[in-house]
């Protein structure tokens, strides 16, 4: 994340953004989720680059509107431009430690490199992934064999490089 020089306005904008929440994950703000890539403040404008978590997420339009309102409140008199950018792709390791804690408190296991996740309710590791899909694009469905609760886990989302096998790319001279 690139922060503009701290001239007061930028700090106020970041502070306002930390109170914009993802409507599909109410405990997490968009800064907790690492969705804010860049804030650019000039005398006349505030420009915001956001990264979509999942490309098909229906909450993106709501998040954009709420960002516009939040920034307008934090930097009155300046034009606000909010856009979603695709590069770098958002990855789940952008979620801050505060965001991970908030997810767990909410009952959603935070992302990790492991398919099976500790149960957010009882902490047991005796859990199983039922499906890598769930009620929203960003969540998978798990089950705890210990406390017998179904629970959701935030999907790990990582950069996927071509597999190191006999692919066409490797065979190119």
């Amino acid at each position, binding site marked *: 994340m690139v922060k503009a020089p701290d001239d007061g306005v930028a700090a106020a904008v970041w502070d306002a953004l930390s109170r914009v929440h993802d409507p599909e994950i109410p405990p997490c703000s968009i800064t907790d989720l690492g969705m804010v890539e860049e804030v650019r403040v000039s005398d006349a404008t505030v420009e915001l680059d956001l990264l979509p978590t999942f*490309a*098909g997420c229906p909450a993106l339009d709501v998040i954009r509107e709420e960002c516009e309102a939040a920034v307008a409140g934090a930097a009155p008199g300046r034009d606000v431009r909010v856009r979603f950018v*695709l590069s770098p792709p958002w990855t789940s390791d952008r979620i801050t430690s505060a965001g991970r804690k908030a997810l767990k408190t909410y009952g959603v296991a935070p992302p990790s490199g492991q398919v099976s996740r500790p149960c957010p309710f009882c902490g047991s590791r005796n859990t199983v992934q039922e499906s*890598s*899909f769930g009620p929203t694009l960003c969540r998978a469905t798990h089950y705890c064999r210990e406390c017998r609760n179904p629970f959701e886990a935030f999907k790990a989302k990582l950069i*996927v490089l071509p597999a190191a096998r006999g692919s*066409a790319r490797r*065979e190119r001279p």
Partner: protein
Amino acid sequence: MSAEESPRLTLLLALADDDLILGHRHSEWTGWVPHLEEDLAFSSIAQDEMAHARLLYGLALDELGQGWDEDRLALGRSPEGYRNAVLCERPNRDWGFSLARQFLYDTADDERTAALLGSSWKELAEVLALVRTEEAYHLDHARTWFRRLAEGPVAAREHLAGGLEASLAEALAIFEPLPGEEELVASGALPVSNRELLNAWLARVGEELEAASLDYVLERHAPVGELVPTASGEIEETPSFAVPGVARVDGRWVHRGDFAGSGGRRGRHSEDFASLWEDMTGLYRAYPGATW
């Protein structure tokens, strides 16, 4: 839109229309899949595919003149303006077919998007880097179920094999050469030709089929009655392959010659596309300018 269609636009539309049309078919499973987890899976995959199509249409708008927008690209073209592979438009039949098709399609999509990460077209490579972070889940879904169904019981295996048999020939045509492909390869926009991609994909799918003892769907053994004794008195079986152009050479599945079920990249679609197009574009055509 042929008059204004550059090879770059054809490449984008081939990628985007595959995602849109197959996404539409996947979405038809919502509410109908045999169990809840798969309802969520096919619905989520459909939602992802449509979002990926939207990102690619966004790039396509840069290649087009005034008067185009995302909705018009997705819904405002005549049927022959769509560049999707015929495989994507086929009806869902049963869940075994849908799963077999998802396996073949997402494996093919993985091959081509991996190659396109190295495209000289920077914006396209960026979009596909993002797309691949989500496609990893589709591929995982397809492979998990492929293995589970292949292990049986027999009815599950038969549904999977039937789905593979019905879709393999048309899956090859995902890699049908694009009109103007030489230009795309020369400029590095398409760093690996469809011919090379097809053989890389087929070798990979062949390995997976062999591992599951399902490679018989690629071979058709001649019925006994057709075996003819040769002059030496021995009976020779002429190798015959179920999918035209496919053969096993030196332990590797390869494709040679023509395509069966091709034409999608040139806007030639099956009779199944007509009803899908009617459904998908009905609202857009009935209420021009509608927003939702």
